[in-house]
């Protein structure tokens, strides 16, 4: 497992029945959220609605922005002062934010963005999807950069990973994306709404904009015109991403030790796949589940490790095969990787996944 951050596996504490979106908002509040900026879009509206009441109570700032273009740039402004800032959105709104996310990455500013995915393309609809995997893990905006992507699979992780996202963002001075979906956002489940660990105290006073009292003026920018400064910024970012790849990967292995087939799935798909894998085990098939929790950095080494022991893989997604290509690239061409997915709001059923497990095993 990684050295810097670990997923909060076993949680002790008082269980509360909570909606995923509220758990996410609570995770942010517990992390010491200072500012929230957002624009309404289903299926994440409970996040701004909840925070519009709770955040000002705690002395934080809540602004309903005029658009997602504005919200992400308000986040950028707040982040530049050292504040813990976030926004949340879905589909079209996240697309509008891409320029701002690229700026956050180029400026090396920490911020948290939650994407409660709804199906597309275009206006699409409010049904769940995992169709934004490429957008999230490939950068999404212009330029050579990455957002760090955390993929919760329960109300508990909506809380825990959002709480953690702020520490991750501050540690690496990079935007962090929570990649959830309409099911995770809307579903109510029991969860412990207490911090999984004590918040990290990360210093920002060596770069934040606070007014230049008693020091030289600072500037935050990503436009570097002199010499090869722009090229050097990219090398610097690449170095950081290498560190992130070393330190951050998080994943969960379910019944993988003796498995003949491993289902690779994240978020809601992983929940469905786990149920299907249990049913398969009941029928005598040795099936496990590998669930990436960080999608960037993808837990490559852990998966490669499994590939050296396991003969077959099945990737399950709520899209037509996006993470699939990462899995194929990691396990190599000698190992068969089959795929089952449904796009545009279609949710794979446990039965469908079970059938695909049986086909893939044989």
């Amino acid at each position, binding site marked *: 497992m990684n050295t810097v951050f670990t997923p909060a596996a076993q949680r002790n504490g008082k269980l509360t029945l909570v909606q995923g979106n509220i758990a996410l908002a609570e995770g942010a509040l517990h992390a010491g959220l200072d500012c929230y900026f957002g624009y309404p879009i289903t299926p994440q509206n409970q996040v701004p609605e909840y925070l519009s009441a709770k955040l000002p109570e705690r002395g934080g700032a809540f602004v309903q922005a005029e658009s997602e273009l504005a919200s992400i740039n308000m986040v950028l*402004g707040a982040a*530049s002062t050292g504040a813990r800032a976030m926004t949340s959105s879905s589909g079209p709104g996240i697309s509008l934010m891409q320029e701002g996310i690229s700026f956050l990455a180029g400026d090396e500013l920490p911020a948290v963005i939650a994407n409660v995915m709804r199906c597309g393309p275009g206006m699409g609809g409010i049904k769940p999807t995992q169709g934004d995997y490429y957008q999230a893990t490939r950068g999404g905006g212009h330029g050579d950069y990455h957002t760090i992507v955390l993929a919760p699979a329960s109300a508990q992780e909506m809380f825990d990973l959002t709480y953690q996202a702020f520490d991750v963002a501050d540690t690496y001075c990079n935007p962090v994306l929570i990649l959830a979906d309409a099911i995770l956002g809307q579903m109510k489940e029991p969860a412990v709404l207490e911090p999984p660990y004590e918040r990290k105290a990360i210093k920002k006073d060596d770069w934040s*904009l606070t*007014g230049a009292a008693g020091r030289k003026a600072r500037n935050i920018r990503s436009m570097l015109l002199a010499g090869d400064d722009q090229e050097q910024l990219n090398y610097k970012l690449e170095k950081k991403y290498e560190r992130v790849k070393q330190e951050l990967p998080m994943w969960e292995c379910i019944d993988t030790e003796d498995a003949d087939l491993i289902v690779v799935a994240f978020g809601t798909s992983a929940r469905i796949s786990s149920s299907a894998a249990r049913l398969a085990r009941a029928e005598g098939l040795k099936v496990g589940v590998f669930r990436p929790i960080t999608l960037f950095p993808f837990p490559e080494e852990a998966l490669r490790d499994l590939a050296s022991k396991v003969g077959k893989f099945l990737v399950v997604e709520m899209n037509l095969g996006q993470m699939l290509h990462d899995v194929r690239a990691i396990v190599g061409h000698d190992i068969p990787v089959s795929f089952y997915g449904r796009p545009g709001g279609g949710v794979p059923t446990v039965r469908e996944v079970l059938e695909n497990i049986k086909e893939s095993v044989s």
Partner: protein
Amino acid sequence: MTVKKVFGRPESLCDVPNLYCSGCGHGVAHRLVAEAIDHFGLRDRTVAVAPAGCSVLLYDYFDVDSIESAHGRALAVGTGIKRANPDLFVFTYQGDGDLASIGMCETIHTANRGENLTAIFINNAVYGMTGGQMAPTTLLGQTTTTTPNGRCAEMEGAPMKMAEMMATFDGVVYSERVALYDPRQTIRARKAVFKAFEAQINNEGFGFVEILAACTTNLKMTPERAQQWLVDDLCETFPLGVYKDVMSGAKQESVASRESVGATAGSGSVKHAD
């Protein structure tokens, strides 16, 4: 004999040569803003926001904390800064393409919310940085690289009047249009910047100063001719004056002020009501 220094570089301007074209309005406008920062002792708590446009290099010239913003998003970035830390003094410095075209939505809403910050708006009637294309403030008939036959109202719409528009929002406490063409007008522009800064210092709300300036390079004019164009053409379409002043202690009915100024704009001897 003792020598008294009566004129020098404002402290919050860096001692570096600026790279703006000769006759460009940005240099003088920078100086006026820097003088206001010095005058009110704001250097230690200022954050400047510079979006895409020729003045994106502002941070090389101002000795204050600053951040670059995406094209059109300066007022959103400024809102984020100010909401996160209301003790900071925040000003944006935006061109016409930035504030009145791609960023119009942010402009209107930031003004309407009455964010307690200051927008300095440089109206040079073109997109300077990208090579002189049509701006929302380009004059009717003015040729640009994308209006080779001159801007025509039927196809491209009429020039947008931002100082007037800003005055319509309840959140705006000060809106004035000034021009940089002679010492008198430059002093007037300086006063306008000071007023808008005061609005923020006193937590009164959004202050807006539209500064008419020349982009000599894209006008393809000498600095002298460009000044004349400013007086004869730009001021004709964009009457100078105070469009709104509801700051505490404001003496003047803003409409009266606008009318008396509008009537004489373009004559080269603009008269203000105050």
